[in-house]
């Protein structure tokens, strides 16, 4: 791992934190939204990228975080940041039994089972009067969006740091091993169940921490936007575009895709979905593993064959032929 890149990452976080007060309302909103996407993408990347459990339902924990925060603010009159922290912890606590059950499903069963979970939790909350039903809960309007922005920046930085740590650790290696082949990993002595549940917990904590900020930002938490399939799917698209299971993939994907998306909807509201979907399909055909691995391969190729990856192999053969 390139130390300079890490130093740069720390510097960027510092710059973004310092720049907050000087941003226009809109610039703040755009950077805020990008940070939400980035943090969601990093959270998702642990369970889905490293551990290979492709989840369509991590937004469940985002919604839970939002509702825990809303309830702690309106009922217990806690400071919302305490509420948001609590939201993260509750998400993680709930992820333990949920993970123990859902992670027994494999492949597309897990993916769509998680999507079903998000829908189920949304419906349960929507039908509960204590949670405000379909109306949702109106929140105090006194919170400065700048504070929400800083909170979210902190969560995004945390998510990035956790990813870097996992990427370099033995835990990260275990996750990759079970992604490639659970049975082999098991016979090699990897505690498969323990490893994937721990990855799931981290992937629940991060969206759980984000949800509270989102609720305060909107001053209203209601089921449809708290369990937004759009947020979920966009963060997945970003990670896949950037490079799933890599440290830099979510960052590159998140920034590029949110800029594209921001530029598209303003100009082509009617064609937005078509262009966005079309681009995703196109990227997958051209760069099925994402931008970051593709760049890495290109660099490696230029610098000689330092490592052998399945994707690099045919490319190398082509140059020989």
């Amino acid at each position, binding site marked *: 791992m390139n130390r300079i890149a890490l130093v740069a990452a720390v510097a*960027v976080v510092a710059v973004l934190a310092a720049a907050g007060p000087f941003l226009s*309302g809109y610039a703040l909103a755009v950077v805020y939204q990008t940070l939400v996407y980035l943090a969601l993408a990093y959270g998702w990347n642990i369970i889905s990228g490293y551990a290979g459990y492709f989840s369509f339902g991590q937004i469940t924990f985002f919604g839970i975080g939002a509702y825990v925060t809303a309830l702690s603010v309106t009922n217990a009159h806690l400071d919302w940041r305490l509420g948001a922290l609590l939201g993260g912890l509750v998400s993680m606590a709930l992820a333990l039994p949920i993970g123990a059950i859902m992670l027994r499903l494999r492949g597309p069963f897990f993916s769509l089972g998680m999507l079903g979970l998000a829908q189920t939790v949304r*419906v349960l909350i929507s039908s509960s009067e204590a949670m405000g039903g379909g109306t949702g809960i109106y929140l105090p*309007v006194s919170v400065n969006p700048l504070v929400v922005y800083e909170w979210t920046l902190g969560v995004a930085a945390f998510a990035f740091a956790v990813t870097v740590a996992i990427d370099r650790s033995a835990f990260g290696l275990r996750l990759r091993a079970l992604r490639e082949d659970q049975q082999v990993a098991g016979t090699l002595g990897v505690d498969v169940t323990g490893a994937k549940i721990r990855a799931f917990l981290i992937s629940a904590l991060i969206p759980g921490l984000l949800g509270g900020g989102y609720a305060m930002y909107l001053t209203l938490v209601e089921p449809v936007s708290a369990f937004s399939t759009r947020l979920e799917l966009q963060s997945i698209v970003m990670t896949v575009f950037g490079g799933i299971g890599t440290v*830099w993939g979510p960052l590159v994907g998140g920034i590029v895709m949110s800029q594209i998306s921001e530029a598209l909807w303003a100009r082509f*509201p009617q064609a937005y979905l078509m262009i966005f979907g079309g681009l995703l399909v196109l990227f997958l055909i051209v760069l099925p593993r994402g931008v970051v691995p593709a*760049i890495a391969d290109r660099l490696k190729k230029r610098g000689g064959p330092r490592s052998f990856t399945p994707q690099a192999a045919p490319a190398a053969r082509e140059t020989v032929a």
Partner: protein
Amino acid sequence: MNRLPLPLRRGAVLAALAAFAALSVAGPQPVGAADSKPIVIGASISLTGAYADGGKYSLQGYQLWVKEQNAKGGLLGRQIELKTYDDQSDPAVGVRLYEKLITEDHVDLLVGPYSSALTGPATNVAERHKMPIMTTEDAAAATFLRGFKYAFQGLPQAPRYVQSALDLAKAHGLKKIAFVGEDTAFPHAIGASVPDSAKKLDLDLVVNEYYPHNASDYSSLAQKIKVSGAEAVIAVSYPPDSVGLLRALKQVAYTPKEFYEAIGPSDPQFWQNAGPDANGILASSAWSSELKTPGNAEFVRDFTKEFGRMPDYHSASSFSGMMVLAEAVKRAGSLDQDKIRDNLATLHLQTLLGEYRVDPATGLQVGYQMLLLQWQNGKQYVVAPDAFKQKSPLYPFPGWTH
């Protein structure tokens, strides 16, 4: 497949991060305030997503008003420009768009987005920037009861929607009513008052239930209503679920004596989607094309000419919101936001919807009345209140076609 840590060149990373940082710190661009420039009115509107249907009607009301007002010489001697973005029916996008309109586009005036779910968050943005926002599509009181100074309601309050339907049931001696509504903010705002209102009228509420947004199947709900023996079905439903509920009731072969579906059937295209089964269905609207308010006939004529379809009450409401805002600006004599705000709070003005009048402390609408509409042989008529009545209600509900 092994994915090793990636030795990215620092140049690439730094370039990417620098680009991000540059983009992030790009502040607002200075805009000259020359008087020759048009007055810009900004709004976000749902053109895609769940609220696209009503959003388009709403946007066209804004557009028509701007076009006509410009033909009449604009506002304060300046032309008017409408700046709108699609919020994709997503409240977070709506917040971002109002931030963009205020801090980036530096619009001069604000009007509201479509639906309660979007208006709640949007009014908070306007409040923070101390810009008055004339909302046109939010009937829920909760939005305006948060101590806001700058938000004004341009629709009648939610509980008023359903009252006339309950009164009608009472007048015809019905005893049992069923209430169902979509599980979103606005139907809840209406539904919350139904148990009390029913009690006051000595009506027995035998079903009181919400169904999910985008629900696909209403058979069991219809069965439940049938079994409950309800004589009137009081639904708060949007156009798609209004049709779905209607079909489900037809398919369980149940004919209520009174069938009311708050919002859905006020859509001028409802007959086309529901077919002749719509005959006799009641709906609420803040407006009707037949209403004798000043300028209404011209509005209907011009709208139909401009957009090739009849306006619905969303269009009339957004058009009226613009009328109110313009009057407040005229009285303020400038674009001074606080003066405009004060005028919006105290103004009484005849619009397409009737008399605009808000509670100065909260901005809640107290002037506008609700109309009870009914489809009769392919046309919508006002059947209550008496002051606006065009036809007597077809009662009881005539039942299904075969």
